[in-house]
Each structure stands twice: as structure tokens, then as C-alpha cells.
């Protein structure tokens, strides 16, 4: 075990996987010489050379499209979007080509697309998004979103090895704020949920950075025993883990940093309504970002992103219900 930041764990995952599998390459804008906008691939160019650490043109569709082409002839590309927001430029390749290829013609597309996502630092409308729900809605794409350093490494290695296109959401806010013991060497984390904290009175279902918000908000919430379920994977969605927790606590708060409508949490809420109705002892409550672009100015941004206080308030209401 080594103590690593979330960012270091992501770097470590790619570095180690590239060392042991020459099919793996990283590609993206400014990831080579500069080491990436967030320095995730710092030092990679020196170790692996320019053909495996590829500085690409500023062309998101090009990055994903060519990653697809490289994948179907045997490489395992990890494509970095400089920010999750810019995936809009690569959406067509991702959704139309990569997502449907295996279903259509039995040809899996082994690409991993890393999306530095999330807000909280005045990134504004184009550097703060959580676009995961778009890809949950697109058949054929797996979507994972780690909340811890250990999971970041294990899920990323798992994504690279998965034969299918995987959208890997790495939360920028966690890059250097979250640190933890990370197993050395190569390991994969299953695309399933984990119980971040056990509890009996209520469940908060969430993922990514919001796991930490949920934990903090309910660390000492009037003595209530609050379970926090870290989904880790949005596609596949660990339905059984969600239902098991609902059966136990009968009260659910679903927490998303993404815009509320049709967010991952909406699917979770729908699942519970569908399959855990008779275990519910209260309404399924949601806390998410309202349907606005993420504003720039700190007071505006703080007003829309789910905060510890908002989660506390919602949790209290539900507990008292």
C-alpha cells in the first residue's frame, strides 16, 4: 500500500498498465510534452515515447474516432478529454460508432475515454460539467465514476481491460483533495457499488465527489445511522446493491452533482420506485444540481452545487418523515 492522491492513482493505473501491456496508449490534447492539463500524464512522454503518449490535434471527434479505429485493430487506447465538457465534440463518435458497434456487428470497441468532470472551483459553464447521464442513456457504453484513490486506480485498469467502450469520470475536485492507501501493482475494481458507510436509518445513493459530501453531511447527523452507497459504476448499475440497501433502511436520498433532470440519480429513483416500492417508508428524495449551466462566480456556483448543508437538510427531513 502506498498513500496516493486520486490523481496519482489514475496516473499509476495508466503507467503500470502501459508498462505491462504495449497495446495500451494514451492520447489527447496536451498530454505529452505538457503532461496534461491536470498533469495526469506528467512524465509519460519520457517513459513511453510520443507514439504511445500522443499529443493529438484539438479535435475531440478525431480523438475518439481514431481511438475506435485503433481499438478494432488491436490497440487499447485511453483517450483524454481535456475537460468532460468537451466530450460534446466527440459525442457522435462515442455514441454512434463506439456504443453501437458490438451490438451491430459483434465487434467490441475497447476504448477508455477519461472525462475530468465536476465543478466547485469556478470553472464556469464549460469546465464544470458532469455529463455522465448522456452516456448512461447511450446503449453500449459503460460508465464508471470512482470516489476514492483506490477505486480510481482499480476502475481505470478495469476500464482499460474491459472489451467495451468505457467512460471514466474522474472528478477534478478530488484530484488532489482525496488521498488514500492504494494497493501497489495491478488490480481491477469490479464495476459494482460499494457501501461507503453502513447504516440502518437511511441510505444516500451517490457516486464520485458526492460520496464525500454525503459522508461529511451524515457523519454526525443527530445520531442517525446513515448508509452511504457509492455506486462506482453507473453502467452497469448495481441494481441489487441499491435494492438491498433500500430494503434495509427503507428511506433513500439520491444525490447527484449532475444537473437534476434524467441524471444518474433519476434512474436510481426510478429503479427504487419500480422494484422496491413496498420497502419504502418515505418518498425517494433527490438532491442534485438544478438544470442550469454551472455558473462561474463563487456564490452562484455554491448556490447550485449540492452542499453538505443541503444534503444535511434533506437527510434530516427524510429521517424525520
Amino acid at each position, binding site marked *: 500500500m502506498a498513500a496516493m492522491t486520486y490523481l496519482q492513482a489514475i496516473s499509476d493505473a495508466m503507467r503500470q498498465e502501459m508498462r505491462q501491456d504495449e497495446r495500451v496508449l494514451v492520447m489527447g490534447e496536451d498530454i505529452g510534452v505538457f503532461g496534461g492539463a491536470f498533469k495526469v500524464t506528467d512524465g509519460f512522454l519520457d517513459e513511453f515515447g510520443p507514439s504511445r503518449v500522443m499529443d493529438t490535434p484539438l479535435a475531440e471527434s478525431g480523438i475518439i474516432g481514431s481511438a475506435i479505429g485503433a481499438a478494432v485493430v488491436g490497440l487499447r487506447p485511453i483517450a483524454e478529454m481535456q475537460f468532460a465538457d468537451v466530450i460534446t465534440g466527440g459525442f457522435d463518435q462515442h455514441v454512434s460508432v463506439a456504443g453501437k458497434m458490438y451490438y451491430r456487428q459483434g465487434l467490441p470497441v475497447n476504448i477508455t475515454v477519461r472525462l475530468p468532470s465536476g465543478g466547485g472551483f469556478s470553472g464556469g459553464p464549460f469546465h464544470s460539467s458532469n455529463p455522465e447521464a448522456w452516456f448512461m442513456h447511450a446503449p453500449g457504453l459503460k460508465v464508471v465514476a470512482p470516489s476514492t484513490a483506490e477505486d480510481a486506480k482499480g476502475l481505470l485498469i478495469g476500464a482499460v481491460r474491459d472489451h467495451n467502450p468505457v467512460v471514466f469520470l474522474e472528478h477534478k475536485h478530488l484530484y488532489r483533495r482525496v488521498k488514500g492507501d492504494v494497493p501497489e501493482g495491478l488490480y481491477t475494481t469490479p464495476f459494482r457499488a460499494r457501501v461507503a458507510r453502513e447504516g*440502518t*436509518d437511511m441510505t444516500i445513493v451517490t457516486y464520485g465527489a458526492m460520496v464525500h459530501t454525503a459522508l461529511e453531511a451524515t457523519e454526525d447527523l443527530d*445520531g442517525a*445511522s446513515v448508509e452511504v452507497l457509492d455506486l462506482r459504476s453507473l453502467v452497469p448499475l448495481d441494481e441489487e446493491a441499491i435494492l438491498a440497501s433500500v430494503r434495509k433502511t*427503507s428511506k433513500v436520498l439520491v444525490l447527484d452533482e449532475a444537473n437534476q433532470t434524467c441524471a444518474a440519480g433519476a434512474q436510481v429513483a426510478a429503479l427504487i420506485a419500480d422494484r422496491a*416500492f*413496498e*420497502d*419504502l*417508508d*418515505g418518498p425517494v428524495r433527490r438532491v442534485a444540481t438544478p438544470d442550469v449551466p454551472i455558473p462561474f462566480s463563487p456564490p452562484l456556483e455554491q448556490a447550485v452545487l449540492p452542499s453538505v448543508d443541503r444534503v444535511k437538510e434533506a437527510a434530516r427531513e427524510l429521517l*424525520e*418523515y
Partner: protein
Amino acid sequence: MSSSNTETATVDIVMPQMGVSVSEGTIVGWRKQVGDWVEYEEPVCDISTDKIDTELPSPAAGRLAEIAVDVGTTVEVGTLLARIATDARPGEPHASEHDGEREPSAPPTSEAAAATGETPAPSTDAPAPEPGVAAPDGDEGRARRRYSPVVMRMAAEHDVDLAQIRGTGRGGRVRKQDVLAHLEHGAAAAPAAPDPPLHIESPYRPEPAPAPRAAPDAPAPGPAPQPEARVATPVPTGHGEPLSRMRKSIGEHMKRSLELAAHCTTMVECDMSAAERRRALIGTTALPIVARCVVDALREFPALNAWLEGDTFTQHDGVHLGIAVSLGEDGLIVPVVRDAQDLSDEGLGRRIRELAQRARGRALTPDDVRGGTFTITNPGQFGAVAATPIISQPQVAILDLEAVVKRAVVITDADGNDAIAIRPMTMLCMSWDHRAIDGAYAARFLTAVRRRVESV
């Protein structure tokens, strides 16, 4: 039990004759106050007689116009207890009310008041509730009762009358916890703060002290494993009160048992890890799991599944398991699970729950409490780690389950290596009658129970 007076549009409620030999009855409590709306057959008060404790359903719908007998007063059969004004209308202020603040559309419902037996504040003093804000405990809050899906399901599965449950949720809403508490304890109220998980499993809970009432007309009230705890419970001082019928009965029985039997107590420590897992799996308390192990062990040690009456020692074929159920400060009663050997742990759990519920509802029949061959008592939730229970005569032993406490224990692995581990432990304390068996037999039995509990 009632007579109608059409001229004054009132109906009388009188002390009923509960059995041919009964000549008098005592008012245990009024569920309704003067001015309250009462539905037909809605319980108005609770009475206690020599034979039975029961609730008294209203002979008519209307407003409670008059209460003639105070709580605690014993009156002859046929005595007027109260009057119902049948010309009143729901929502209309009673003649005695002089303001119109009560929300017309929200009369106190029958079920709400009946459920708790509480006496709502006189309506004349009740402020109108704020729109959308239900009073947590008031009858307004429970007037529009809706139940969550899980509560409905649990009620159906366990045949629970939700009206009998006092809700602790917002606006008096019945929550899952309330149903669980009801199932576990049959209590009217669930505590707001949960106890440590390993301790809340006990079906026995202290209740808010209701008015003293007599025990049902049943033989052999159960043992009092922790008499000291009850004696030590602070009693509101200031005036002396006679012991309740039940307390007296328990006391006499216990004293007689101590005089009669040669009491010895043996204790064995038991690791509850496996029972905890099993408990979580089947969704019960640990009690039915241990009970099932006890039943199995009794089949192996039949001299403990026995009666000693004078010089006659009878070993029973079937295990009729007495389970002590606390009735709060009133005392306790020991309903019997008949032919417990035929039930699984889940089945035992259901049966115990059902008996406990009926005990709480004062709805046990004499047959329910008769013929036990072995008794389990389980006051572990209070945190005591050991006790010396008193045998319920004419049985020869009683097993006491105490608190499950996490302890550091030495465990030995398959290779014989010792290690210290944290395990949920409990003490199995059994009092037995040295007239019937010896200490080695008792120890072997308890060890057999332990072995089973640790490997469920």
C-alpha cells in the same frame, strides 16, 4: 350494557358483566374525554375485572357528553360510566364548547385515539393547526393517516392493525420503525433514539407506565428474573398505592417457587456471531434462533423439559416453550409456544411475535399461558450481563438470555493458533431445580445450547 335515552338523545355506558361471577369492575383509563367524538364500537375506556381486562366499545356514535366514574374507581356491574350524546355531529362543536377554532373537517378519529389510549387535550384548548403542519402527536396529525408502502406491507405480513400503532414520524406518521417496535415490543410508542443494534433485538422494552391494571385471568404468571431492577425503578413518590393485581400475583408465584425449588444457577458464555448472521438473514431477533437451539438441546436433555410436582417428575414429549413477555411496569406474562419442536427459527420468531403482540393487547387466552415445559426470559436489552432467574413452577429450569456485548475473546484457529478477536458475546444463565437434576447435567445442557447457537 347500555340503555338508550331517546328523549335526551344520549346513550349510557355502564359497567358490563364480564362473566357470571363478576360483580364489579375498575376503570383503568379513559380513552376519550368529554367533548371527544366517538364512533360506534370505538373503545371509550379500559376496564379491569377479576376475570379479564378489556376495552369498552361505545354502544353508539356521538360525543362523549359525560364521564361518571374516575380512573381507578371500582364500581358495581351496571353502574353508569359515561354518556354519549348521539345528536351531535362530527365536526360540530359540542354544546360544551364555546369556540369554533377546531378544524371542522378534522374530528378526532376513532382509530387514532383508540390506538394510543391517550387523552388528547381538550379541544377547547387546542389551537387550530397551521396549514400543512400536522401536530406531531395530536389527533389532527393522525386524522389523515396514510401509510408508506413498507408499513402497509409489514402490516399485512404480520397482521398488524396499524391503528394500534402510535406514529413517531412527521405529523404522527407511522414509520417502519414504529411497526418494527410494535412487532418487537407490542408497545404503543417507539423510542426516538435507537439503541445499540445488538440490544434493540430484545422484544422487551420499558413502556410509559399506564395506570395499574390487573393481570388477565391466567395461571402461573411468569418469573421475574430481575426483580431488583424493577424494585429499583424510581416510583413517583408522594402517595402510596396498592400493588396491582398482576404485581401481587407475580410476587406470590415467585416467592412460592423460591420456597419450593432448590434453585441453582449455571452460566455459560456464548459467541453470538453466527446467530447474528442468521438473524440478519431471516430478519428476526436473536431470540427465536436461540430458542430453536434450546428446543433441540432439550430433546437431547429431556430431564430439563419437565415438571416436578410433589414427588412426581414428568418428562414431556413435546417442548412447550414459555417466553416471558414484559408488560412494562405492570409486570410480565409468559405465553407458551406449543410444540416448539415443530417450528423452525423463523416459525418460532413469528409465533413469539404474535404471542407478544397479543400479550400487549391483553388478548391472551388462558390456553396461551398454560402448560409450559421450559421457559426463556430475555431481558438483555437493559445491559445486564448475568442474572439468576426464578423457575416458573412446576417447571424445573428457566434460561435467561442477557445482553449481547462485544468482547475481546481468545479464539483458536484450525491450526491451533490463538488470537484475540472481537466477538458479540452473551451469557446463557440457567436456573434449575436441584431436586430434579444435578449441576453436571445443567452444564452439559447449556454447553449443548452454546454449541448449537455458535454453529447456526
